[in-house]
């Protein structure tokens, strides 16, 4: 990128552009000093063993120019996205366009999601990927209850995912119960384990809580690996039955859905069905969470995140509040787990490693703790984006690391840090809480 093309837009204020240029120049100078020896001079052992060197001033110049241009871009982005504590250099039309897009993003996204199987009917890969993304959206929304609302840092969320998956897998393969019977059972069992985890950690907060939940996640996984007679150990459970549409299987046979409807069988039918099942489950999670937030229990969760001492002073039973948060989050994790098992048809402990917990937590944190839309967007970006950059091979981890760091610099509260209040009084006011800076004193 050349330095001249990256100059601030004409809308920028003079002081703003001067400031940006100064900052970029300083960055370029630092880069010049740093790289002049590292890049500008290349040394190597010569054929006779002596040291030979040659200069690479062209590369050096390119690098310094990149730093200069990049620093301008970074500063511009910071002023666009950063906190609104100074006059924004973004022109008014752009601002209103952004706010318009923000208002319609969620409904548009929902409509689009409903249409995905129609639009991409012939693209199995995209359907598969959408189902995966929706699974993580649901997991993110479930963990959001625990981490985002109640403020209890849970690093072992995958444990409930595993409990749900194994509950369904074992109940279905051993007792022949159907998916729709097992789904609530898986949710209940996971919620039960959530309460079980909740009890020992009632008195813990922050780092200590994180360590215990991390251990809990590992314990569940190790139990699954070692309890061979029940879980099949590392071999996992296979032959997990596929879900039926209210008793009608989605198979090519005579009693299958396609035959009953009199249409030609296609394996895509099952994918579309699975897609709508997980979409319904995710939306249920979202709906329940939104409803709960408006009830005293949801408010108590949020208050608990803010200040535990104040909660006690207000007569909130912190024990039941924490346990219900754990149980609710775990239940959604368990439901998602049961879906995962029926989709895969095969599960093994390898699917429930710490990496999954970390991924779901990253989705919640990146999305903005407590924000439903943010979590959905983050799941789309993390899971979808990860697939998108498959071509980058080993660099995609690097790209994601950089993207996460940048996001946390510019949006320290996540993609959508705004928290919608749940209590409204009759009189509406013009000032939004987002327009006011936090004050102390």
């Amino acid at each position, binding site marked *: 990128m050349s330095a001249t093309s990256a100059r601030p837009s004409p809308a920028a204020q003079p002081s703003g552009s001067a400031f940006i240029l100064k900052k970029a120049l300083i960055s370029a100078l630092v880069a010049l000093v740093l790289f002049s020896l590292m890049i500008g001079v290349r040394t190597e052992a010569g054929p006779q063993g002596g040291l030979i060197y040659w200069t690479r001033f062209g590369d050096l110049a390119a690098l310094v120019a990149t730093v200069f241009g990049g620093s301008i871009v970074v500063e511009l982005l910071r002023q666009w996205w950063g906190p609104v504590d100074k006059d924004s250099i973004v022109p008014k039309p752009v601002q209103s366009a952004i706010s318009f897009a923000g208002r319609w993003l969620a409904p548009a996204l929902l409509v689009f999601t409903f249409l995905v199987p129609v639009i991409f009917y012939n693209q199995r890969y995209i359907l598969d990927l959408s189902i995966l993304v929706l699974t993580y959206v649901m997991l993110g929304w479930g963990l959001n209850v625990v981490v985002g609302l109640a403020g209890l840092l849970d690093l072992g969320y995958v444990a409930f995912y595993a409990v749900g998956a194994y509950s369904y897998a074992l109940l279905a393969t051993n007792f022949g119960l159907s998916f729709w019977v097992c789904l609530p059972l898986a949710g209940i069992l996971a919620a039960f384990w959530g309460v079980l985890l909740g009890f020992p950690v009632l008195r813990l907060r922050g780092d200590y809580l994180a360590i215990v939940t991390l251990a809990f996640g590992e314990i569940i996984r190790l139990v699954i690996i070692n309890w061979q007679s029940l879980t099949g150990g590392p071999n996992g459970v296979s032959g997990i039955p596929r879900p039926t549409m209210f008793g009608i299987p989605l198979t090519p046979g005579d009693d299958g859905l396609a035959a009953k409807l009199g249409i030609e069988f296609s394996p895509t039918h099952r994918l579309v069905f699975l897609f709508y099942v997980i979409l319904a489950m995710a939306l249920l999670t979202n709906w329940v969470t939104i409803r709960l937030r408006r009830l*005293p229990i949801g*408010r*108590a969760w*949020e*208050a608990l*995140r*803010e*200040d535990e*001492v*104040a909660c*006690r*002073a*207000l*007569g*909130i*039973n*912190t024990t039941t509040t924490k346990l219900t948060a754990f149980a609710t989050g775990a239940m959604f994790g368990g439901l998602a787990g049961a879906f995962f098992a029926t989709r895969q048809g095969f599960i093994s402990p390898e699917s429930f490693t710490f990496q999954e917990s970390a991924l779901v937590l990253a989705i919640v944190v990146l999305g903005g703790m407590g924000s439903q839309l943010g979590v959905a967007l983050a799941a789309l970006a993390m899971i979808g984006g990860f697939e998108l950059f498959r071509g980058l091979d080993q660099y995609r981890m690097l790209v994601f690391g950089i993207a996460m760091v940048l996001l946390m610099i510019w949006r320290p509260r996540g993609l959508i840090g705004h*928290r919608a*209040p*749940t*209590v*409204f*009084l009759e*009189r*509406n*006011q013009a*000032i*939004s*809480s987002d327009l*006011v*800076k*936090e*004050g*102390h*004193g």
Partner: protein
Amino acid sequence: MTTPLLAVRGVHAAYGKIEALKGVDIAINRGEIVALIGANGAGKSTLMMTIFGRPRARAGTIEFDGHDITGVPTHEIARLRIAQSPEGRRIFPRMSVAENLQMGADATECSEAEREAGLERVFALFPRLKERVVQRGGTLSGGEQQMLAIGRALMSRPRLLMLDEPSLGLAPLIARQIFDAIRTLNRQDGLTVLIVEQNANHALKLAHRGYVMVNGLITLAGTGAELLQRPEIRAAYLEGGRRG
């Protein structure tokens, strides 16, 4: 003689091995403002917390309205409509002013009409809060946060309001507003108030009666005016305070 609303008799409390209360007796009658003054670390806040069951009293009894509440869980004590505005305000910073107030109402089952009446009372007392009802709690100034903390406590329609250092860190003018509001609450609504303060001058002028606490013991008791006249009080809490 009628029974006091709150009676604390011979209460001991400790954090681990450190004994913070060494046999405290206080009584608060209905419709009274009682001030509890004393130096840092005298055990004033501990007494307030012990009435709330955290830490629990190791010995002695606490009676509220004739019922022994010594062993009652903290969240149930709040349901008896004892409200507390804790030290350092402790409002919920990311929740809006309206939500903060609602949290106070959530603790006790109250009807919609009672909630409305409570909100109106709080807004009449602190009009500033009404102006800022959609703002996040953390965006309020210190004085407004204190108003919010008191307002939140009032939303549970308390029979006894306990305030821990309501003037802490506030400008004198704002502190005066807070004290005026407490006086109004007491005179107009007949609210019983226990106020813990380091600002002895303000607190004793406001209170009907006062207790002085030193090292976990009540050393002096009397009406506010009496205590203000005592030379040892003047020396320890008033002149010294003014110099600082």
